[in-house]
Every structure is written in structure tokens, then in C-alpha cells.
């Protein structure tokens, strides 16, 4: 594919998108599609969906993954770097400002009380997400033992989740490649 999109345009596109999107990285998909597929015609619908799937497969922060993959496709390595910078720099500046301004306000009595109410709520929301994600990938009740034991080991055993991921990945790979063919 020829390098048809300028790095400047990529930088501007991702910066504007980063600043107008709330919530987690998946919220970025729809506006990005509208922007690069429908309005600017930089990518076809099929190609865009393929790239989103790829961004979901690789590890890391999703908004950076998506920026890097789309930027790479549009304008090569420099495009990927520009897309990442476009996403990261505005967020870095904006959140630094928010932290500097709002950190002292956490201790104001009204805000402190509201936060005391919302902290258990955010924990509850994580638990609810865990349950909803599990309901999709786990079929029998016995299968729940596996994620539940992982949660307990991370939460109470203080084992780094990085090791859990590496072990899980390694075990699954070795089983699929070497053990299962022998059976």
C-alpha cells in the first residue's frame, strides 16, 4: 500500500479523537471508523475491521495498540509513531493538569464523602465486569474455579498478574504445540 496519508494529518486526527473520547479504549473504535473510513476514505470497511481485530489481539493499552496499528497501515513506521504521539501527548497533558488541579480537592469534605461512596462502587463494577466476561467464556460452573483461584492468588497472594499471564500463555502454548499432538 502506498504512503498516501501525511504524518501531520495522522497526528491531528488521533489527537482530536483522543481528546473527544471518554471511557475505555473500545469507545474509540466507532468514532475512528467514522473518521477514517466514512469521512476521509483512508481505509476500506473490511480493512479497518481486520486492523481492529488485530489491535485487540496484541497486548498493551488498547488505545495505543489501535493507534499504532492504524498509523502503521496508513503511513508506515513514522505513521505509527505519529498516531501514538497523537493519542498519548494530549492525554498526558490533560490528565497532568487535572491531577495538579484536583488532587487537593479530594480532601474537601463533600468530595471526600462522595468518593467514599464511589470507591466501593468502582470495586463492584470491576466484580460485575469479571462476572459478565466470565459468563461469555466459561460454560460449566466447575470452570469458574480456574479464574476464581487466579483472582485469589493475585488479590490475597500478591502474585504479579504479569507472571500469571506469562505462565498461562506458556502452559497453553506448550500444551497445544507439544502435548496435544502426542495424545
Amino acid at each position, binding site marked *: 500500500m502506498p504512503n498516501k496519508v501525511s504524518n501531520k494529518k495522522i497526528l491531528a486526527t488521533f489527537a482530536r479523537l483522543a481528546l473527544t*473520547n471518554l471511557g*475505555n479504549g*473500545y469507545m474509540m473504535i466507532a468514532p475512528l471508523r467514522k473518521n477514517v473510513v466514512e469521512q476521509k476514505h483512508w481505509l476500506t470497511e473490511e480493512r479497518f475491521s481486520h486492523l481492529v481485530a488485530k489491535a*485487540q489481539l*496484541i*497486548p*498493551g*493499552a*488498547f*488505545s*495505543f495498540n489501535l493507534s*499504532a*496499528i492504524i498509523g502503521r497501515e496508513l503511513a508506515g513506521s513514522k505513521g*505509527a509513531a505519529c498516531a*501514538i504521539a497523537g*493519542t*498519548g501527548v494530549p*492525554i*498526558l497533558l*490533560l490528565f*497532568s493538569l487535572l491531577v495538579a488541579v484536583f488532587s487537593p480537592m479530594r480532601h474537601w469534605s*463533600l468530595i471526600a*464523602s*462522595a468518593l*467514599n*461512596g*464511589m*470507591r*466501593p462502587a*468502582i*470495586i*463492584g*463494577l*470491576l*466484580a*460485575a*465486569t469479571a462476572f459478565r*466476561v466470565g459468563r461469555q*467464556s*466459561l460454560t460449566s460452573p466447575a470452570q469458574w474455579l*480456574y*479464574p*476464581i483461584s*487466579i*483472582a*485469589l*492468588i*493475585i*488479590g490475597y497472594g500478591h502474585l504479579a*498478574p504479569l507472571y*500469571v*499471564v506469562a505462565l*498461562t500463555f*506458556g*502452559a*497453553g*502454548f*506448550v*500444551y497445544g*504445540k507439544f502435548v496435544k499432538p502426542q495424545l
Partner: protein
Amino acid sequence: MIYAILFISFIGVGFFGFGGPEAILSMLAHLATEEHNWLTQSQFADLLIVSRFVPGEASLNAATLSGYAASLSEYGMASSMGASLAAMVGLALPSYVWAELTYHLRIPTTWHDGLTHALALLKQAIPGLIGGAAIILASADNIGTLQSPWHLGISLFIMLFVVIGNVVFRINAAALLFLSALAGIMLL
């Protein structure tokens, strides 16, 4: 020194953070509150709350806040921007490398069975990763202790209310957070 530690730690998150925006939170929570004392559990919880209402994915904001908090007390405001940048670049670098790798390399067909099983096993582990983050954050400063039974009781009630409200009645997260804030203002 703190710059290097932040940079390398966040590279680790970027390279191994499988499982989507929520699963990666367990890595960040462990890193920032347990492995290093960059943030308290309540700061991390506040970060997740605020990230729902401002631009930027929670993991990006976590990098900014970790850098800021890790260096503020020792080196002051000017250096904390640099520390945030170090963490952010560490988080972004693996995405760049993964994009390059997946663009150039084709996965050998002999790896397919291995990768399929690895990803299937990881997929089943994701609820555990998210649940682990929830347990890490269910600390004394976020939900209270037995010494403060009123705070603990209200917290447990809110948690239960939110889980049931979200899973069973499908009330959206923003509405549940708003109700919890009201409950906090009136009761805590």
C-alpha cells in the same frame, strides 16, 4: 532513577498486558500499589472513577498519575511531568513494537495449535485478572475496616448493590456511580 524504574515497569505492562482494558488494570494496580508504593489503593480507585468521565483510557491515565505521584514528593512538580512522560512512553513503546512485528512477521503455521490453546486459556483467565484487581482495591482505605463498622457496612452494601444493579438489572455504570456518590454524601 525513578524515571528508569517507571519506564521499565510500564514496558512490562505494555508487553504482557493481554486481555483488554479491564484485565490490564490488575497489572497496573499490582504495580502501582503493591510492588511499588507509587499510589495508595484509594488513589487508584479514584483514578478509575475519574477516568470514566474524562478523555483517556484508564491505563494511560494510570501511567500519568503513577509518574506524577512517584516523583512529586521527592523531586517536585517540574520533574513529575518528566516521570509521567517516562511512564507513558514505556506503556506506548510495546504497542509500537507489536504493530511493527505483526506487520512484518507471519505466524508460522506450526505455532497455530499452540497459540490457539494459549489464547483460549488466557481468555478463561481474564475474569480472574479483573477479579484480582477488585480484591486488590478492596482495601481498608477504600471500604473501611472492622474498627469502622458503619463505613465497612455501607461499603459492602454499595458493592452488592452495584454488582446486582449492573449484572441483573443492567443499570449503567455512570448511574450507579452517581447513586453511590449520593449515598456517600448522605451516609459517610
